[in-house]
């Protein structure tokens, strides 16, 4: 009986540890790019994230978009930039970016409506992303329903369920 209990304790602690590790590691991007360097160089958000003014999703930069600037020789001494050019751009391989900010499938969040109509800055939902020197592994802000709801209510936007849950 005691053996059984010990085994249970070991198993449950292993499970909790595994859960902790899986939550802690977060998302890993193929290239460790810095948002800050791009912003400092005068690159606007819509050059890499091309669709946030017109579509639902903001879009992530394709290899073609990156190759507009990073085409021949690395501009900085960052080894990641060299890796980007050699592994992806010269081989014309697509960058497997991973999504960091999620909303559930039954939530309709259109970027264009919030950026163009409501004139909300990126930082409002994405946090201080412009000063990040490493890609995010976890969202800086939690995209929860109360966050959406409070803003909608304050600004006099419809809080009818079917406005977002379509």
């Amino acid at each position: 009986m005691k053996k059984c209990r010990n085994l249970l304790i070991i198993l449950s602690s292993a499970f909790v540890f595994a859960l902790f590790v899986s939550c802690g590691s977060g998302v890993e991007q193929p290239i460790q790019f810095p948002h800050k360097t791009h912003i400092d160089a005068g690159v606007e958000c819509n050059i890499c994230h091309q669709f946030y003014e017109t579509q639902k999703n903001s879009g992530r930069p394709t290899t073609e978009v990156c190759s507009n600037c990073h085409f021949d020789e690395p501009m900085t001494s960052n080894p990641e930039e060299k890796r980007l050019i050699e592994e992806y751009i010269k081989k014309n391989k697509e960058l497997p970016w991973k999504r960091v900010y999620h909303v559930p499938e039954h939530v309709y969040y259109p970027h264009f409506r919030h950026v163009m109509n409501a004139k909300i800055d990126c930082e409002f939902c994405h946090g201080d992303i412009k000063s990040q020197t490493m890609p995010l592994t976890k969202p800086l802000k939690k995209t929860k329903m109360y966050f959406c709801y409070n803003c909608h209510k304050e600004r006099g936007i419809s809080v009818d369920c079917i406005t977002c849950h379509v």
Partner: protein
Amino acid sequence: MSGYKEEKKLKPLNKIWPVWRWGMIIDLNKCTGCQACVIACKAENNIPFKTKKESLQAREMSWIHMTLTYEGKYPNVKMSFIPVPCLQCENPPCIKVCPVGATYFSEETGIVGQIFGRCIGCRYCTVACPYTVRVFNWFTPEWPGDMKKYTNPDVSKRPRGVVEKCTFCSHRLNAAKDRARQENRGLKQGDYVPACVESCPANAIYFGDLNDPNSIVSKIGKDPRAFKIMEDLGTEPKVIYLHKV
């Protein structure tokens, strides 16, 4: 909640919309039964295809379906078609039975909304609906071949195990509100039309605001041919039919 309070305050947008009661009129004398509305609805709302086997098991899904009626005896049979979307009742029986509040009556628009993320799939509403317009999603939605890439991004793909229904293409209302807000005006007739209305080749379906006395539905609704299905139940549907008796 407290995390939000620290944020900078944004200006209110100060756009006040009227209270709508979106309604539909289907002219059965004009309807040819071509089922273009059924196809348009399926394409617009990402309703998955069903195989022949699944259809024979009554697992077919459509938010607007054709009901056939036969009159007379052979050889003088007269067949008529009645397209039945969700009738968006003013007094809906389905919301009274939902144990989780996944379906509700939208006071702003008069649409009976379904929140797919909240639905637990108990199917009480499917049974309560006297018009049998609610469908249950029995299988994980699948599209043949490349069709998945062409689904509508404005509408969510519902998972298996939820009840679905016509929402009067409420995502189109949001788009119409967007356009109106940009041009700083109210909604005009024809700004917001569901996919079935738009696709009808015989122009048999009219759509508009029943609260507005000048709208097309308010005017045509006074037609002596107008009737509502199962009016005696007291559900007060907002989809009105026209048929010459």
